[in-house]
């Protein structure tokens, strides 16, 4: 058990050295005592080496991509090129003030401009904003764009159709933007039933949010028809880019008929997840929606770049400054490194790897969406019930074997779901080793189920009491 910082704390210890104070002694602050703090903050007092050891020991308690396969479906845990970490921390890119004069940040603006235009080409859209700080933030921006677009056309459209296989952020973002959500029941493989869609598609539907391929890893075969039906109804089509890795360089959401799209740079474009962020969720639109994009936008005149802060129809500002800049730098570096051909090979190998894994796992557990997939697939752990074992137990047992667990219990439409996405950056050998372990665990489920149901055994802690955590919250030391 690693001590908490307050348990490491010792009066009078400190880690960091204060800058020299070269002020004249008589120089005091201008702040009267009634505005100052009465009780100093109870911050820990720890030496620098103790801190180094503390955080290093804690780092050992994490599974990470740097350690082994991270087969989380829908999260696209691909290699985060180490060179991009160095690049985004170059002083000329990381030590910039957002309010510097434009002529002193031309390199930064060029990166933003070029990234926007690369994403337009990749997604088949006409304009992009890099402002959204994450996928959900991009969805919210997209929903506001739809809202403001229909407002400008004096149309009362209050509903958003979201398939029940979609990520939870979809309905949540639509609600935040003031829409009501119409859940659309998906077919067994997560795809859309055109007849059901037609019934749901009333004249007051502003937008249909789709994830393509869907969260079962199945490409929406009827996508062109869906786009036609939506547009005939005056409804916009929104693309959740969580699964763009399956399509990049092979097909473009814009060509399918999508009007608005967000991309997760922390998935398809290899920027690290950072233990939960920061990510980035750029939003692309077709030309007729470009006036609604958030501000600021990047413009180019001749050879110089500038920021534009005004727009008559803009949805406004989504966050301070210009998006998660270091994430944008990494994503642009990734695009430049791979180039057009390399990016196409990404989707090829992402889909190849996923199909390979599915081909060797489809006999061990049911694959409700069939025996072919795009970049990810879903298995059902339901048959394990005969041994008293659940999907959760398989997931925990994988932790024992040095793997992170796949995404589990999502999508909600598959019972005991196990969602696996290997990505293109894993080797066949790594996948084969994973398959061997996965098979062994399933064999163990039959012979020794209690080892699974009480797992994990080798991790720093065993199963944690989540009920207790929520019932009697202890949220700080």
């Amino acid at each position, binding site marked *: 058990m690693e001590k908490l910082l307050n348990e490491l704390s010792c009066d009078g210890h400190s880690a960091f050295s204060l800058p020299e104070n070269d002020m004249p002694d008589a120089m005091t602050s201008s702040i009267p005592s009634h505005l100052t703090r009465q009780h100093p903050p109870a911050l820990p007092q720890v030496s620098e080496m103790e801190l180094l050891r503390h955080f290093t020991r804690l780092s050992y308690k994490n599974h990470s991509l740097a350690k082994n396969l991270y087969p989380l479906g829908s999260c696209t845990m691909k290699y985060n090129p180490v060179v991009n970490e160095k690049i985004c921390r170059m002083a000329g890119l990381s030590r910039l003030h957002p309010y510097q004069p434009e002529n002193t940040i031309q390199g930064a603006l060029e990166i933003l401009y070029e990234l926007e235009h690369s994403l337009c080409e990749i997604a088949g859209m006409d304009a992009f904003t890099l402002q959204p700080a994450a996928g959900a933030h991009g969805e919210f921006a997209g929903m506001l764009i739809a809202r403001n677009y229909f407002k400008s056309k004096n149309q009362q459209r209050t509903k958003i159709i979201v398939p029940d296989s979609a990520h939870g952020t979809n309905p949540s973002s639509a609600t935040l933007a003031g829409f009501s959500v119409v859940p659309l029941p998906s077919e067994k493989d997560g795809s859309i039933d055109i007849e059901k869609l037609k019934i749901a598609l009333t004249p007051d539907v502003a937008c249909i949010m789709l994830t393509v391929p869907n969260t079962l890893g199945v490409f929406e075969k009827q996508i062109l028809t869906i786009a036609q039906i939506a547009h005939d109804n005056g409804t916009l089509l929104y693309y959740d880019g969580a699964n763009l890795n399956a399509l990049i360089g092979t097909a473009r959401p814009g060509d399918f008929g999508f009007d608005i799209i967000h991309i997760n740079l922390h998935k398809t474009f290899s920027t690290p997840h950072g233990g939960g*962020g920061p990510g980035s969720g750029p939003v692309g639109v077709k030309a007729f929606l470009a006036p609604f994009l958030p501000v600021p936008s990047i413009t180019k005149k001749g050879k110089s770049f500038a920021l534009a802060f005004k727009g008559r129809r803009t949805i406004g500002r989504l966050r301070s400054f210009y998006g998660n800049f270091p994430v944008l730098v990494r994503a642009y570096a990734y695009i430049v490194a791979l180039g057009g051909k390399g990016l196409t090979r990404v989707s090829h190998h992402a889909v190849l790897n996923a199909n390979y894994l599915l081909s060797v796992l489809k006999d061990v557990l049911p694959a409700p969406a069939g025996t072919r997939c795009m970049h990810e697939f879903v298995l059902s752990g339901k048959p394990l019930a005969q041994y008293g074992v659940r999907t959760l137990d398989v997931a925990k047992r994988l932790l024992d074997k040095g793997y992170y667990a796949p995404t589990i219990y999502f999508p909600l439409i598959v019972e005991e779901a196990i969602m696996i996405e290997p990505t293109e950056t894993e080797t066949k050998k790594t996948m084969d080793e994973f398959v061997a372990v996965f098979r062994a665990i399933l064999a163990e489920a039959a012979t020794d189920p209690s080892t699974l149901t009480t797992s994990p055994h080798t991790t720093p802690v065993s199963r944690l009491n989540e009920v207790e955590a929520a019932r009697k919250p202890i949220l700080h030391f």
Partner: protein
Amino acid sequence: MEYIPSNPAEVKEMLASIGASGIDELFAPIPASARIEKLHLPDGISEHALVKRFQTLAAKNRSLDNLVCFRGAGVYDHFIPTLVEDIISRPEFYTAYTPYQAEASQGTLQTIFEYQSMICALTGLDVANASLYDGATAVAEAVLLAMRTSGRSSVILSAGIHPEYREVVATYLQGIASEIVTIPLVNGATPAAALKQAINEKTAAIVIQSPNFVGTVEEMAVVGTLAAANNALFIAVVNPISLGLLASPQEVGAHIAVGEGQALGNPSGMGGFSFGFMACRKELSWKMPGRIVGQTTDTQGRRGFVLTLQSREQHIRREKATSNICTNAALNALAGCVYMSGWGPDGLRTIAYTNAQKCRYAFEKIIAVPGFSPAFANQIFFNECAVKTTKNIQHLQKLLLKNGILGPMGLARWYPEFADVVLFCVTEIRTKEEIDRLVEVLKQA
């Protein structure tokens, strides 16, 4: 460079296992008419060429490594201990996903728990979340939290809140039947009389930033009393470094404290190395947005940490969630965690005091220069001071830049009434010599 390892033999083996004739076959479900021949992007380049390319791009910028920075306005040039970057550069942290599988994520979970603890210590409040995107979205989420809790639909914003934060609040409220009442500044501060007049039974919250955007340390306790008397929530927007010295949000009666965390160990980064922090009173915890880590025990009674109060969140509640946030700003908050862990209460107080002291020194020197005068009467400020000038501000900025100085922020962009006011920021790393040199250049303007 492609980062794709498979060789042709492996591809062949995999295709055989799949029973496919080629990779192309796997894309059969995509209508041929909707596929592309190729991407119209340049070919990829080597790692060496990539680094060169970005060195060239970086060289087109002037970084704070070779500019002396007297600009703040929401992003601050503070000392960053080497340990901070060292820890967040560990791939065990930066290549990890959101800690959903707690047993294999105790490193991330414990650091978030420690981060939450120190945000609680700084703000004096009971509960902190794991981070939001940035200061602006943190304010917007705080306003939504106040509206959810109170069932009221109006919010009072001081004009002293960062203008971009106010823009973001307006963006976030577009989908909600609500009203924003903005209180203009008087003498650089939010006038209590105007707040009193504006507050009513529809007011969900009063939001005040201190130090505010024009640098003034606000009389926060007065606002706390006023909010309490009207059953409205008080949202304090604070600079975390200033809390080493200034009254904590808890001490002034705030229900919610939010702010931008960049100053805690993150570089200026074009404003992109951000995280939003949020803390609130216990009774609001179930309405909070974002992830929260809690302490619990494992099956053997050992201490461990998990994501908790999850039934607030989008992956469980979908359209009924308290917020749509999923990915936050964890790694930047980890930098904040390491930063906060190494100073102790006295160290942070000293840093905060040094900021205030150096800014005061600069202020006294600057207003002694002909053509510069205090922007407000009896100015009380932390590390940013507003100064009125008779000089041509554009010309002044150019002259400073020519001398290697990133000059003060002009306020005209957001406040037409302050067209002749500039905002100097002085942090603990500005030296007396640098300040004196700034003053010398101002004399030449």
